[in-house]
């Protein structure tokens, strides 16, 4: 039985080198910025979904992802629904009639909701990929990946160690909340000021615990020879397999191809450069990218 905090390292995505996964995250982040058409964004969201599924998420992880996605899509749609400024636009619901503060009233526009839905596909693609990477990569793998990518050892170590302690901090926070509840505390029972003061005070033991733990961790690692800028060796080889190289090159090639298409199309639109031989490429970029 896998504990809830275990990563799905044996899934197809989990077996990839951390560097490939980091590159995948980077690839998706840049692609969603480059992409503009609903089709392309939908395609990226589907790719994100495939990446996510290949990480074989647990039920808990799926639940967490679903909640995040619902909040994200709903938030983007609603904000675009309210503040959509293009025309034509159709009022779907009027929340406030026109007034000095809102000249056109406070409305939700149909086109805004649709635009928000399309835009949320960008975030959906990145979120799914990001979750999939987090769910399938042990902090250790991240660490080795970062070090192999020549990231500073000490910084990578500290960042990864901090990640490792997040579940403990979350657990401690839950314990503090339970202790406060058992001592009769109920938010807003004694007014807003008291609630704010108590909520802030509730962070004190968690912060104190984090400071104490960081001191203990620091003591433990310095007494095991950890020091800034030292020469180190590594237990694990950090060589990439040919398959991993192929994946990296494929992502790079695709990224460069899309970037080149977009750049050429932009030069054409700006009337800086036009080549008749590229007419097919212009059309492809306009219709699909």
């Amino acid at each position, binding site marked *: 039985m896998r504990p809830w905090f275990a990563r799905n390292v044996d899934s197809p995505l989990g077996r990839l080198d951390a560097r490939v996964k980091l590159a995948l995250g980077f690839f998706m982040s840049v692609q969603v910025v480059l992409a503009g058409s609903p089709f392309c964004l939908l395609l990226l969201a589907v790719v994100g979904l495939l990446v996510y599924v290949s990480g074989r998420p647990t039920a808990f992880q799926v639940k967490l992802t679903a909640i995040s996605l619902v909040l994200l899509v709903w938030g983007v749609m609603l904000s675009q629904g309210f503040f959509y400024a293009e025309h034509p636009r159709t009022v779907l619901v009027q929340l406030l009639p026109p007034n000095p503060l809102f000249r056109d009233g406070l409305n939700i526009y149909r086109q805004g909701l649709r635009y928000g839905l399309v835009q949320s596909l960008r975030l959906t693609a990145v979120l799914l990929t990001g979750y999939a990477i987090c769910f399938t990569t042990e902090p250790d793998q991240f660490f080795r990946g970062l070090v192999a990518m020549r990231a500073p050892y000490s910084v990578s170590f500290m960042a990864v160690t901090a990640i490792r302690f997040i579940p403990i901090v979350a657990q401690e926070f839950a314990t503090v909340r339970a202790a406060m509840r058992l001592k009769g505390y109920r938010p807003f029972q004694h007014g807003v000021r008291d609630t704010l003061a108590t909520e802030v005070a509730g962070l004190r033991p968690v912060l104190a615990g984090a400071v104490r733990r960081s001191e203990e*961790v620091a003591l433990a690692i310095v007494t*095991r020879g*950890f020091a800034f800028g030292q020469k180190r060796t590594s*237990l694990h080889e950090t060589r990439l397999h040919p398959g991993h190289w192929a994946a990296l090159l494929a992502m790079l090639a695709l990224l460069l191809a899309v970037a080149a298409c977009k750049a050429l199309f932009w030069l054409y639109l700006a009337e800086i450069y036009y080549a008749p031989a590229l007419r097919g490429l212009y059309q492809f970029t306009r219709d699909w990218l």
Partner: protein
Amino acid sequence: MIDVQALTVRYPGREAPTLRDADLHVAPGELVLVSGPTGCGKSTLLNAINGVLAHESDAEISGEVTVDGRDVSTMPLHALCRLVGSVFQNPDSQLCTATPETEVAFGLENMAVERAAMRRRIAQALDTVGLAHCRDQPTATLSGGQKQRLAIACALALEPKALLLDEPISQLDPEGAAEILAVIARLKDAHDRAVLVIEHRIEDVAALADRVVIMAEGRLVSDRPRAAAFLDLGPLRRLGLAIPHLPDLFERLGRTERPLSAHEAPDIQAQRPLPERTLEDATPALVGAVRGVRFRYGRHTPWVLEGVDLELHRGDRIALMGPNGSGKSTLLHVLAGTLRPSAGAVEWEGGTRPPLGLVVQEPDLMLFQETVRDEVEFAPRHLGLGPAARADVAGAVMARMGIEDLADEAPFALSRGQRLRTAVGSVLSMRPRVLLLDEPTTGQDRDQIERMMDGLSEDVDLLVFCTHDVDTVARHANRVVLLANGRIIADGPPRQVLFDEERMRAACIRPTSAQAYARRIGVAALQVDELVEVLS
């Protein structure tokens, strides 16, 4: 091997030195136990020897510390770990990678050891501590004892000349502690290494030690070979330390022997029958009942509680015992209502839960106010008491817990024992009818445990506490519930349950040396006091 000469350490902002003129010598192959009350400077001594104090603190240091003839203050810290290995109290915060293999490799990688040599040393170190079979298991899934053994393996892999262990068993259950003690015994027998162990639990470690050093207020007040260490127990009593049971018994019987284990002790004939217990028994009146409770943390996780049935009577002082993971804390949280059972229910008399207080395993997480007084007044304030009434309640509770002099102190500035008593006080001020304590004895010295337990409200209808401390159970419980794998395997008076060897073994609970001795001479005594009465 370890030489400390005239060492005095004063931390910035403190008037009194934390260590004063300390002299200590530990020879190769020697194991020295250092004990003393909280705050006496034990950890400072350890950090002086491993070089952390000289390199990583602003403390004023005078005197000299050498290991293997080399001055620790002049060597770079990262090079010192080849000379001195350190293992600390909390296994969770000294492990920072995903598996035992990578954890042991961490230090070797820092030392730039070549890959082939690294693999050999990892295998050797894990084998020494008996973890070779868990080499690739996620560290998070190891037990407390396994994690602490892993920490020892990490230190050993660097092949240090001296090994320092700072309260290595204080956070562990009896099974985990026994694992660590077995490793320490193996180290002592197999290597020519100086080993220094700092520990409150003197009884557990003393039998392995060659010498016992006692510290108080920054000084080494006693440094004797094990055989002579317990001839005079006066200093240990004055310092409120946990005196090993059998030396205590034999001194009180006026005998000269100071055995540390039951098999070393000579037989003594009982002179009179065992006295009746002084703790009041529970009444038949029910406070509540746990009916068929099952619990698990997720749909796909194993059951932590598997059909627990338990009747709770007025006057019950129940000790929940069992190995880590047996479901003790979960049962306590189910009783408190902070966890909802997956099946079954907790039924309280009258249909509503009585006022209930819970002290969680890490009492520091219950301290969030600026002063001790605010902390103790927090619950009465939120339960609607006026200023005068809550001041009265808080005053009475602080007096009972012995923290009235600390009323205006910040809780985080207090010692561990004082923080625990403040946390208990903050719950007692709710005037609970039911009080639940989750491992209140972990990491506390005997004096602090007694002060806390003595201060617990006698007008609480029901007290339930989880503990591994058999001594505390013998003193403060009138009923013991043994849990193993989420099921109750024994439930009865302490004398009956603690003498049931088979069930105690199943629950991974080890008797104290006094109980083992009592068992050997055929007396059903649980405490030294009872043995003294029977044997004198």
